[in-house]
């Protein structure tokens, strides 16, 4: 696999339990690596938000990003589908490879990237259109017009998002006229309808009811094989419950850039963290 010259010779990332992933550093990207991030620096104008982030995201698995408020979890997540491009004055350095290709390389179309890397936000944000049109939005963008085909995609996506049973008789209702938890699952269905490779979820469960949280956690497990998921969460139990890998971010001094302190298998991070700061955070000593 051809590698961006930028990547060659960069040091291995912060402490990791998962040494195999980096054992042949930077000659090739491991087979199951979806995102390969090296020495990422991120700036909002003059504000240096993230520094030296190096991380591999494993395909077909769920990765949780944890850390105190303001430590750059959302910022990092939004780098992965270039949503930060939409904020004026942002700057990114380092490399972010997706399936081996540099997503910030010249000529890369962020629009195409976002089709393959879907995103769910903290606040459910369905379009003020019917439930059906919400789910059919992405397929229609891709030029699918046939009613029967759209019907099938809508039904399948809603089923995968654990929402079909609740809305199958009200597909014409406005997407804003259902409960918050249902709206969030509608947003998930909308993303799944375009068959993304990756799902980025930024605190998807922090604004919704427990039943819906349960349903979302279930569906994450169900789609895990097809869709690599990265979830930001403040809920340690949730991270421990749903994820296979966990990364801990921390901004130690206000105004200074945040760093990725530690990454590894969720089980290891939660039982035998290598870094004192990780342990402190997980046991609730700060954040």
């Amino acid at each position: 696999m051809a590698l961006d010259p930028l990547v060659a010779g960069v040091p291995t990332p912060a402490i990791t339990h998962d040494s195999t992933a980096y054992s042949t550093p930077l000659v090739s990207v491991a087979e199951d690596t979806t995102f390969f991030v090296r020495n990422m620096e991120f700036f909002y104008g003059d504000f240096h938000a993230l520094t030296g982030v190096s991380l591999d995201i494993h395909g077909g698995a769920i990765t949780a990003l944890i850390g105190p408020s303001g430590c750059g979890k959302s910022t990092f997540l939004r780098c992965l589908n270039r949503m930060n491009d939409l904020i004026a004055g942002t700057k990114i350095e380092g490399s972010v490879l997706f399936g081996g290709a540099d997503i910030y390389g010249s000529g890369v179309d962020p629009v195409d990237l976002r089709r393959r890397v879907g995103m769910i936000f903290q606040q459910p944000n369905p379009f003020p259109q019917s439930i059906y049109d919400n789910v059919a939005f992405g397929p229609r963008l891709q030029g699918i017009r046939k009613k029967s085909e759209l019907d099938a995609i809508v039904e399948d996506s809603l089923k995968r998002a654990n929402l079909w049973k609740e809305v199958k008789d009200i597909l014409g209702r406005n997407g804003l006229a259902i409960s918050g938890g249902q709206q969030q699952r509608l947003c998930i269905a909308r993303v799944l309808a375009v068959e993304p490779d990756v799902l980025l979820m930024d605190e998807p469960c922090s604004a919704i009811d427990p039943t819906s949280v349960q349903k979302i956690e279930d569906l994450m497990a169900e789609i895990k094989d097809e869709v690599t998921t990265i979830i930001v969460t403040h809920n340690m139990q949730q991270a421990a419950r749903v994820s296979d890998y966990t990364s801990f971010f921390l901004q130690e001094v206000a105004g200074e850039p945040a760093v990725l302190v530690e990454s590894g298998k969720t089980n290891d991070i939660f039982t035998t963290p290598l870094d004192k700061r990780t342990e402190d955070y997980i046991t609730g000593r700060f954040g």
Partner: protein
Amino acid sequence: MTPFTLRQADEQDQTLNPGMSPDLATTSPQHKKAELTLVSRTTQIKERALSLLFFLCAIVAVLGVVLIFAFVAVKAVPLFKDIGFLNFIAGTKWSVAQSKFGVVPFIVGSLVVTVGALAIGAPLAILTALFLSEVAGPRARAVIRPAVELLAGIPSVVYGFFGVTVIAPVVGRLFGGAGFGPLTAWIVLSIMIVPTIAMLSEDALDSIPMGIREASFAMGATQWQTIYKVVLPAAKIGIIDATILGMGRAIGETMAVLMIVGNAPQMFAGLTKPIATLTSQIVLGMGYASGDFQTALFGMAALLFIISMGLVLTVRLLSRSKREEGQGA
């Protein structure tokens, strides 16, 4: 209304009226325990007085509308007897000398002028609003928005003047004649209604939550797709409202139209042939009209009143249907 309510701080009122609350407190002594502060009498009186004041202001506005309409209607009523309603509303000939008061030419004139101005002005205004709300950076916005607002503040006589001295000669040279007529009116009126429609449409666009734009981009939509498939449908009702209000402005516009439309009480016969509108004809006749002539003018005024009321009603109905849609079927 309950005699007390939870308050954060009302010490000022309490100290000003030390005698007020104790008697209330004795009627319900248990509330001392709950640490609820009582509303002082002065606060109550102040609030009553204020709501009365607001009510009176509202009444004045309503009375004004009712009185004006009643006045116009009363003056127009002889129309049914003296001119004949059909002769008035369906008559195509207007001639004071022959006592013919058919207003169809003016209705058609108003319609032609309004529809044309909307056809040019509304797309211009909506695109301006889209540019300001969706595309422009802060710097472009800082220049363009005040310019659009300024456009709204220019008196219509200045627009008329601009039409007479700049647009009409150009139209005249291109199409022959003096250049006074519907085409000139379209051009000038469309510029006049741009600020109304653009500013209101921009409000409608700005009130759409940022989140749905973000969602659209995150779905891999381009900016154009986001505008076309998400933003515009979401703001549709607001933009239609804005357009209807712009239409009201175009129908009611008098001074500028009077200066450029040619003022010939004849049927629309071409884009550069002089015509007259309901408003311009009223102004022209107002100074000297009497008898049936005056009655006809009042009839036209009533007609204008009804048309704009219809427009306002349409806006109301639209925004109500939107609210219901938001709450779900």
